[in-house]
């Protein structure tokens, strides 16, 4: 058994006596410091002062766990509870999970993004469960008057081994609250895990399958009005004049309000507002660069040779390596902007009252949203509450809080509780996209096919540093230059699932494929050889674990029968992101002269898998997402305005287009790392590399559908 060492200074939070029975543990689950629970004696969690987060056990044995991080489909509510329940030896059928509201006193990192919640909370949650188990076990031992060592916990009961007597957790909860906390609590060995790693069904399945009002869009409040907002349709414009006379006369319209560059139509129902909005006349004028996708293409070409690049990494002497190269390979790759398109459009409820502000809705980042509202309206944060509803997808879009600010500002103007909702068109045209980027990769090979020089220049639009300069294959190559140029544009961008790497990985992995071919090497052997170089003669800073990288490569090659399936065209790709390693092999078959993506094998090393069912979903979903967007996703601009505004013009992958996905995991028992994003980046590259094998054509731009290979096919089909 591994043992938790406690830190006595901080272990014991305040002990608070409350009326009623039951056991309540308060501890900073998400704090970096106070790890150990305080003991509270309570029947009603609500009455506990707000300095901690809670796990409570009621006298009927119900274990209630508050889940602080926003749930957007990563299944965090189930996974968090599983970890606590594992160490607690709880009866899973008695576990209930509730979404906690924003509370910076109780929780740290109350955020969904960066695939970071599980790694951050892993030990904290285990300790929470183990501490509660210790108290229950000792309460039982005291009652029986036997040594605690004779007792064991199992599925919601403490059992006295010699006699077989047992008490349920509910029966012990009140007494357990009186036991003194230990200095250290033992944690389980992973071989004893009963819940962690198992496929446990989503704890909210029933609410979802019966249509319970759990999403932000479903939120209703007595006296609430609805609103939709007309935002500038083109980036780089501002309001010149507004004519809202016709709108105001429409049935159900309460008010038309201008604030910032927005015109809000306030009404009593959504449809009345949608209809009236069509009558709103707003004239816009230029307020910055008005950009089109066409201009961006030309701009990228200029920036590729611009002198003012930011150097992100430099190893050795690249110029010399390229001068003495036996072979040089050079290629460019480009991707368009992408909207996030979570299926639940943006929405938020706000009620700005004289005494404080209430915010309710779907957000990945409640804390930053509150800070921003506080700043905007000059109301102190402790007067603002944020309730987090379930998110109908996020993909990074809800890391922005523009839509929260809008709702709050509007409520402060109209002095009413209001829910602002976005239409799909608003959502797709309203900004915060995956940035458009172009990469140029160059490789120098010596006469024996060794990769001696490597250059990458990334140019992007509001993309910041669009490289991951310390990631593989850097570290294995003696001479490296990685640089970026960013163009500042009025078109807003933001984090999109697996930010930057969602396209960078495609470009890099297809490029490496080409380099391997030029070096006369098998793509898998070539990558392993590079890793071996990083192992034996590392160059500069290396951020990845060479052995874990090596293992996923070998494991996925083995699983997919790499090189052993005659007649099947295979493509390889592997990527490290969010502290996890994912290798993929794509299989393509030619059908009626066309390449058809059949199957993708994915082997992931995310350390200990928490929920096997959820983990498989994350990987399959990420592969479908990565493939779908690589194939079809494109948001283009004409004079500052998005040319696609709904799912009739913006194509999302659908059921008949998905490949089979064979997902599996490296079982190494390491502490868990992220899984919400890491399986997405490798997919585009695996697909493109397999398509190359099948057709001899390299795909270099996304969406693939617009590449000559597919464009030609589509034309023939149409004619």
């Amino acid at each position, binding site marked *: 058994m591994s043992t938790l060492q406690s830190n006595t200074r901080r272990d014991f939070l305040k002990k608070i006596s409350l009326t009623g029975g039951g056991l309540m543990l308060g501890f900073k689950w998400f704090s970096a410091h106070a790890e150990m629970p305080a003991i509270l004696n309570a029947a009603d969690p609500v009455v506990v002062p707000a300095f901690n987060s809670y796990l409570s056990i009621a006298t009927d044995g119900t274990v209630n766990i508050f889940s602080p991080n926003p749930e957007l489909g990563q299944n965090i509510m189930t996974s968090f509870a599983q970890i606590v329940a594992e160490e607690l030896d709880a009866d899973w059928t008695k576990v209930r999970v509730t979404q906690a509201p924003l509370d910076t006193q109780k929780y740290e990192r109350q955020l969904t993004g960066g695939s970071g919640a599980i790694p951050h909370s892993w030990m904290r949650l285990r300790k929470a469960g183990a501490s509660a188990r210790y108290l229950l076990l000792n309460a039982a031992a005291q009652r029986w008057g036997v040594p605690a060592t004779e007792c064991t916990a199992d599925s919601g009961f403490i059992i006295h081994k010699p006699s077989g007597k047992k008490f349920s957790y509910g029966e012990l909860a009140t007494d357990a609250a009186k036991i003194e906390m230990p200095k250290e609590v033992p944690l389980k060995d992973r071989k004893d895990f009963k819940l962690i790693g198992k496929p446990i*069904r989503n704890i909210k*399945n029933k609410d979802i399958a019966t249509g319970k009002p759990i999403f932000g869009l479903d939120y209703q409040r007595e006296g609430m009005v609805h609103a939709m907002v007309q935002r500038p349709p083109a980036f780089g414009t501002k309001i010149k004049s507004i004519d809202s006379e016709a709108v105001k006369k429409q049935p159900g319209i309460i008010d038309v309000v201008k604030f910032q560059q927005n015109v809000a139509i306030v009404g009593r129902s959504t449809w009345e507002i949608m209809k009236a909005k069509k009558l709103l006349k707003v004239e816009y004028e230029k307020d910055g660069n008005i950009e089109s996708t066409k201009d961006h293409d030309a701009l990228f070409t200029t920036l590729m040779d611009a002198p003012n690049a930011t150097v992100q990494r430099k190893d050795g002497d690249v110029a010399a390596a390229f001068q003495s190269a036996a072979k040089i390979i050079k290629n460019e790759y480009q991707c368009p902007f992408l909207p996030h398109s979570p*299926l639940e459009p943006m929405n938020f409820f706000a009620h700005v009252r004289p005494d404080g502000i209430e915010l309710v809705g779907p957000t990945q980042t409640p804390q930053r949203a509150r800070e921003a509202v506080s700043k905007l309206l000059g109301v102190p944060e402790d007067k603002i509450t944020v309730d987090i509803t379930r998110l109908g997808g996020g993909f990074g879009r809800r890391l922005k809080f523009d839509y929260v600010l809008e709702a709050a500002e509007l409520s402060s103007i109209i002095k009413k509780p209001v829910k602002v909702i976005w239409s799909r068109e608003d959502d797709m045209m309203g900004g915060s996209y995956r940035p458009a980027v172009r990469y140029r990769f160059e490789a120098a090979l010596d006469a024996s096919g060794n990769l001696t020089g490597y250059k990458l220049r990334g140019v992007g639009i509001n993309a910041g540093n669009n490289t991951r300069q310390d990631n593989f294959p850097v570290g294995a190559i003696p001479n490296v230059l990685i640089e970026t140029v960013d163009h500042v544009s009025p078109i807003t961008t933001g984090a999109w699932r697996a930010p930057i790497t969602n396209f960078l990985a495609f470009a890099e992995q297809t490029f490496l494929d080409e380099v391997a071919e030029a070096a006369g090497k098998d793509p898998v052997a070539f990558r392993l050889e590079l890793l071996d170089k990083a192992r034996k003669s590392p160059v500069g800073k290396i951020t990845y674990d060479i052995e874990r990288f090596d293992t996923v490569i070998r494991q996925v090659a083995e699983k997919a029968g790499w090189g052993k399936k005659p007649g099947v065209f295979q493509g390889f790709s592997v990527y490290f992101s969010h502290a996890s390693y994912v290798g993929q092999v794509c299989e393509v078959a030619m059908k009626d002269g066309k390449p058809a993506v059949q199957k993708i094998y994915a082997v992931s090393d995310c350390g200990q898998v928490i929920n096997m069912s959820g983990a498989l979903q994350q990987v399959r*979903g990420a592969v479908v997402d990565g493939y779908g967007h690589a194939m079809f996703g494109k948001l283009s601009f004409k004079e500052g305005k998005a040319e696609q505004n709904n799912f009739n013009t913006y194509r999302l992958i659908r059921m008949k287009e998905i490949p089979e996905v064979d997902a599996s995991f490296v079982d190494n028992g390491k502490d868990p790392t992220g899984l919400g994003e890491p399986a997405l980046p490798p997919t585009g590259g695996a697909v493109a590399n397999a398509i190359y094998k099948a057709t001899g054509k390299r795909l270099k731009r996304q969406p693939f559908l617009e590449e000559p290979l597919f464009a030609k096919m589509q034309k023939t089909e149409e004619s």
Partner: protein
Amino acid sequence: MPVYKLNINGKIRSVDVAADTPLLWVLRDHLQLPGTKFGCGIGQCGACTIHYDGVAVRSCVMPVSSVRDAKITTIEGLSENGDHPVQLAWDEVDVAQCGYCQAGQIMTAAALLKKTPKPTLEQVENAMHGNICRCGAYHRIREAVLEAAKKTKP
């Protein structure tokens, strides 16, 4: 505004709304039945799927005036206790990610199985192709429909 009497989940409900109000918004805003979801508003995503006399339709593009005396079923009325074979299969197969599309997926699947209790894989895919799942839960959606078919008595 005209008053419409609608037969929804076995109950007659009256609403006083404009004739062109899509059934989706009648359900969500006027009848407190928000289980039917808004995803696109143009009949493209299937999040708003309901049953119109047992047939799956997009409520976002169906004006309330065209409903007449049709029997409308929403996700809230698919079963009394959430135990329709499709709902049970959705839990068993553990389909949902964010869950937002799932009411629409379930309604589409339930309508398919009503008409075709033992569908082939191809029939399942054809029926479900109109429903977008942005989270990409398609593999399990497909599996769950087939699983539900096993539970459905023809």
